[in-house]
C-alpha cells in the first residue's frame, strides 16, 4: 500500500486500466480498515452494534468489487470500554496492523484518549457519535452531530413550536452534557430567556433516585410559564428518570422532555406507553421514510438478525464509510493525506433523504430530525430541518465564537479569526 501511495495516481489508474481484472491479483495485501469499538465492558452494547455495521458495510463494498481493485479487510480490536486501552489499541492498529483508516470510538473520553496517538502517527479516524464539539483534529472526521446539529435545533423547536419559556437542563455529570448545557444556557440567554428561568442539574451515571429532581422540575411551573426539559441524561439513568416522570403523571403536553442520548435502544429498557409524545432529537431515526433507509434496514436485518434496530451512529458510519470509499477512489490511493484532501466536499445521500456534505472543518452538513416517542418504542418524526452544517466551535460561547476550523484553506483546526492566528495544529486533547 505504501508503494501505491508513492505512485502518481494517473499512472496507477492507467496500470489498472491495462491489467484490468488482474488488479485483484495486484493486491497481495488487502486494504485494511481498523474497527476500534468496545466489544466488552460497559460500552459494549452500543459499540458492538457499530462493529457489526462496519463489518456489513465492508462486506457490501467487497461484493461491489472492493476499493481501488483491492479487497477490504476489517481489523477488529476490542478496547474493552477501558479508556487507556483505546490509545494502546489505536497505536497497535496503526503501527502493527498498519490499517489505512480507523472507524471507531463512542465516548468522548475514549476519543480524547485516541487523539494524541492518531495525530502522532498521522492516522485517519471516523468518529460516528453526537458529541460536544469544541474540538477539531486534522486526523478525525466527525460524522456524528455537533451541538448545533442536535441541541440548538431541538431548543429552537422548544422555543418556536412548543412555546417553552422556562428550561430545565438535566444531564449526567460528564463532558458532553456539561458542554452542551453551557452552550444552551448561553444560547437561551441570547434568545431572551432570563438566567433565573434556566434550571440546571447534574447527576451521576446510573442515577436511580429521581423523585426530588422531578419534583423540582414540576415546581418550575409555578410562575405560569411553559416548562420544558432538555435531557442529556446518559444510558441506564434514563430508565429511572422516565419511570419517575410517568409515575408523577407528567405528560408531554404539560412538560415536554427532549432527549439527546435516548434512542431506540434505550427505550427498549422500559414501557413507553406513559411516555408517548416526549421527544428526542437525532440526525436519523429508524422510522425515517426513504428508499435508501428501507434498503439499509433490510440489509442490516439480513446481516445481523431480524430483531436488531438501526440507530443514528450507524447512519453516521454508513455515510462516513461511503465517503471514505469515494474519496479514496477519487484520490486513487488510501494515503491519509490524499484521502483527507479528497474528503472535502464529498457528498453522499443520507438515509433520511437529502445529501450529506463533508465540510472543510471535518464535520458533515446533515438534517436534524425531531421524533416523538410512540407506544411501540419507536419514534414518530414530526420535524425535519434542511441540512445544517456542523460547527466545530460553537458560536454561542464567547471563547469559541472567535475560533474557526478550516483544514482545507487555512490548514488549521483552531483558527482565531479575530487576530488571525492559528492557535494550534494538534487538537486540544
Amino acid at each position, binding site marked *: 500500500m505504501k508503494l501505491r501511495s508513492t505512485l502518481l495516481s494517473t499512472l496507477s489508474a492507467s496500470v489498472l486500466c491495462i491489467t484490468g481484472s488482474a488488479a485483484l491479483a495486484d493486491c497481495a495485501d488487502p486494504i485494511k480498515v481498523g474497527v476500534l469499538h468496545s466489544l466488552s465492558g*460497559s460500552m*459494549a*452494547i452500543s459499540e458492538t452494534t457499530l462493529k457489526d455495521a462496519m463489518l456489513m458495510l465492508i462486506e457490501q463494498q467487497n461484493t461491489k468489487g472492493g476499493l481501488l481493485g483491492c479487497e477490504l479487510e476489517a481489523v477488529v480490536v476490542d478496547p474493552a470500554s477501558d479508556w487507556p486501552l483505546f490509545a494502546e489499541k489505536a497505536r497497535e492498529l496503526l503501527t502493527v496492523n498498519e490499517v489505512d483508516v480507523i472507524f471507531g470510538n463512542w465516548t468522548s473520553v475514549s476519543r480524547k484518549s485516541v487523539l494524541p496517538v492518531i495525530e502522532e502517527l498521522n492516522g485517519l479516524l471516523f468518529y460516528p457519535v453526537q458529541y460536544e464539539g469544541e474540538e477539531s483534529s486534522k486526523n478525525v472526521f466527525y460524522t456524528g452531530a455537533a451541538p448545533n446539529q442536535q441541541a440548538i435545533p431541538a431548543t429552537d*423547536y422548544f422555543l*418556536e*413550536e*412548543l*412555546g417553552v419559556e422556562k428550561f430545565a437542563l438535566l444531564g449526567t*455529570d460528564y463532558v458532553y452534557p456539561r458542554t452542551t448545557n453551557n452552550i444552551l444556557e448561553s444560547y437561551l440567554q441570547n434568545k431572551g430567556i432570563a438566567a433565573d428561568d434556566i*434550571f*440546571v*442539574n*447534574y*447527576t*451521576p451515571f*446510573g*442515577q*436511580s*433516585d429521581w*423523585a*426530588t*429532581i422531578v*419534583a*423540582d422540575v*414540576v*415546581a418550575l*411551573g*409555578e*410562575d*405560569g*410559564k411553559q416548562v420544558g426539559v432538555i435531557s442529556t441524561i446518559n444510558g*441506564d439513568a434514563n*430508565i*429511572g428518570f422516565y*419511570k*419517575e416522570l*410517568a*409515575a*408523577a*403523571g407528567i405528560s*408531554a*403536553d*404539560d412538560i*415536554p422532555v427532549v432527549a439527546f442520548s435516548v434512542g431506540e*435502544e*434505550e427505550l*427498549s*429498557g*422500559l*414501557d413507553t406507553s*406513559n411516555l408517548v*409524545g416526549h*421527544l428526542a432529537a437525532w440526525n436519523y431515526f429508524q422510522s425515517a421514510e426513504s428508499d435508501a433507509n428501507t434498503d439499509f434496514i433490510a440489509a442490516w436485518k439480513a446481516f445481523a438478525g431480524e430483531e436488531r434496530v438501526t440507530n443514528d451512529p450507524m447512519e453516521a458510519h454508513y455515510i462516513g464509510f461511503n465517503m471514505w470509499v469515494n474519496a479514496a477512489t477519487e484520490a486513487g490511493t488510501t494515503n491519509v493525506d490524499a484521502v483527507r484532501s479528497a474528503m472535502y466536499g464529498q457528498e453522499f445521500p443520507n438515509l433520511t433523504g437529502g445529501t450529506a456534505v463533508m465540510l472543510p472543518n471535518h464535520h458533515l452538513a446533515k438534517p436534524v430530525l*425531531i421524533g*416523538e416517542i410512540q407506544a411501540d418504542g419507536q419514534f*414518530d*418524526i*414530526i*420535524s425535519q430541518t434542511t441540512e445544517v452544517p456542523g460547527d466545530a466551535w460553537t458560536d454561542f460561547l464567547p471563547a469559541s465564537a472567535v475560533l474557526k476550523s478550516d483544514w482545507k484553506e487555512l490548514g488549521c483546526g483552531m483558527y482565531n479569526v479575530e487576530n488571525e492566528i492559528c492557535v494550534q495544529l494538534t487538537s486540544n486533547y
Partner: protein
Amino acid sequence: MRSALIALILMICSAPAAVAQTLQPILQTHAVEIAKPSRRSVGEALNTITRSGVPQATAFLEQWSKKNIWQRDDGVFLIGVADGDILTLTDVDTQATFSAPKSNYKRLKPNGGVRRLIGTALVQFQLIDPDLSRREAAVASIARRPEAAQLNPLLTSIDAETDPALKVRKIQLANFLSALFAKDPADRIAAINILSTDTSIESRAVLNQILSVKSGVADTQPKGNIAAIHNPMDAPDTYYAALVNEGLAPAKQTAADIKRALEFNIVNGRIAGFSLALMNDPDTRETAYAVLAANGLVPALITDDLRNTALNEHVFYDLYDEPNVDITAVAKTALGSVTSRVATAQVADLTLDALSLASIFFLAAIGLAITFGVMGVINMAHGEFIMMGAYTGYVVQLFVPNYTMSLIIALPLAFAVTFGAGVVMERLVIRRLYHRPLETLLATFGISIALQQIAKNIFGTQARPLTSPDWLAGAWVFNDVIQISHIRIAIFVLALMFLGLIIYILKRTRLGLEVRAVTQNSGMASSMGIDPDRINMMTFGLGSGIAGIAGVAIGLYAKVTSEMGSDYIVQSFMTVVVGGVGNVWGTLAGATMIGFGQKGIEWLNPSNTLAAQTYMILFVILFIQFRPKGIVAQKGRAAGD
C-alpha cells in the same frame, strides 16, 4: 368571542344555515398551513375552520390532532387509519369510506405546540359535549392555555355539568380565569382571595402572572403601578450593564477592549510613547490607555466613580403589568400566604423523599444485616443477589404478561432463587472460610465478578424492562407539592414488613433462638443439640432470599442491569456498619441517617447530586472513625471482634 358563540349556537341547533356545508374547500384555502403546521402560523387556519360553522370541523380537528389526517397527492385531506400498506380513508365531508394503498398519501403530523392550539380551538365545541372524555379534554386545554375568551363559556357550562369531579375542576378553573380576566376588579379580587389557600402550581401560576413585572430604568420615577425601586449600589455592575443595554451610558471597557484600542493606536511601534515590549504589564497598558484617552484618541475609561455617578442619576424600577394597585396588593398578600404554605409542604415532601431513600437503602441492606450483621459473614456478592432477584422478575414477566400476576409469582420465586443461590454459596465456599473473614470477602468478590459477567452473557448489558402493574405505576398525590410514587410507598411498606419479619424470626422463633445461640457460641450451641451447619446455611439463605425480593422491588422502581448490584453494595455495607453490626435496628438507624443526610445535602446544593453522594460517603467515613461500633453499638461480650 361573539362569532365563537354564534358558531356554538349553530353547532347546537345544527341549523341548516346557508353557509358552506363542505369543509374541504376551506381546508384547501389553507392547505399549506394545514399540511405543514407551525405554532406561529396555524392560528389563522384554525380560526377559519372553527368560525366556518361546518359541523364536520370538530371531527376533523380531533382527527388532526390524533395524527389521523392524510393528504392525497392532489392535495385533498382525508381521515385515514393505516393497516400495513393499506389505508382506510373517510371523506371529511361525505363520510364516505374507502380503501387505498398508502403510497399516494402523506400523513399529517402536527407537533405538540400545534396540537395544543387545536385543543384550545376545540374547547368551545367540547365544553358541553355529551361525551365526558371530550369535556375533560376541553378542561385540560383551558388549564394549559387560559384565555380570557374561555371564561364565559366555562361559566355557562358549569351548571349543566353532570360529572361531579369535573364540575369541581371547572369551578376551580373558572376561579383562575376570573382572577386573571374578569372585567370587574371586585370579581378579580374575590377570586384572588380564594386562591390564597390553594397551594397548587396552577394557582401559584395565576398569582405570579397577575404579579408579573417589567424592569426598567429612567431618569425619574415613572407613573404606574410600581412594584419596587432598586438601589443600584447593591450590584453596581449588573445595574450599569442594564443602563448600557438601554443606551443610557457608554459600555464599560473590558481588558480585551483596552487591548484592542491600544493595538489600534500603535504609532511607529509605540503606543502613547510606550514601547510595545512593555505591554506585557497590565498597569502599563492602563497608563497608556489613559494617555490615549487624554489625547482624545479613545473614549475615557469608565472608572468606578464614573459608573456610580451614572447609576445615581437614574432610577431602577420594577413596574407591574397590571395597572390596578388594589389587585396587585391583594395578589401579593395571597402569594405570600401561599408561599409559606408551599415552603412547609416542601419540607414535608423532602422528608418523604428522604424516608423513601432511606427505605430503599434499608431494603438493599437488610439481607446484609442478617448475613454480615448477625452471622459476621461478609458477602460481596450480595449486590448480585439483588440483581438475580431483579432478573427473575424480568424473566417472569416474559412468560406472564399480566403484570399483577407476574409480580405475585416473581416475589416468592425471586426469594426461592436467591435463597437457593445463597445456600449453595454457603455450602461450597463460605463454610470453608468461617474463621478467615478477609478471605470470605475476597472469595465472595470472585463470585460477584463471575455472576455479574454471567448475567451480562445471558441478558446482555442493555437494561431490561421490569414494569410495575398499573396500580403501582401512579403516584399518591396529597397536593401539587407533596407527592410520592406508589412504588416508593410499596418499597417503604416492604422494608417495614421485612423489619418486622426479621425481628420476629430472631426474637420469637426457634430458628431465631438457634441463630443467636450459634452466633454467640457455636461450640456450646452444638453441644446443646443445635446443628450449627444447618443454622448457618438457613440464616445465610434467608439473608440472600430477602436480597432477591429487594431486587424485584428495586428493579421495579429503577432499572434492571447486570451492574445494578454494584451500585448498592458499598452503600449497603456502609449502612450496616454505620448503624452498628449485629443489630437490625442499627441497620434501620444507618439507612435513616444516610437517606436523610443525602437528601439534606442535595437540598443544600440542588444542582449537583453527585456532590451530595460524595460528601455523604465522606461523612460516613468520618463518622465510623469516631464511632467505630456504629450508632447502635453492641455492648458486652457480644461486641468482641
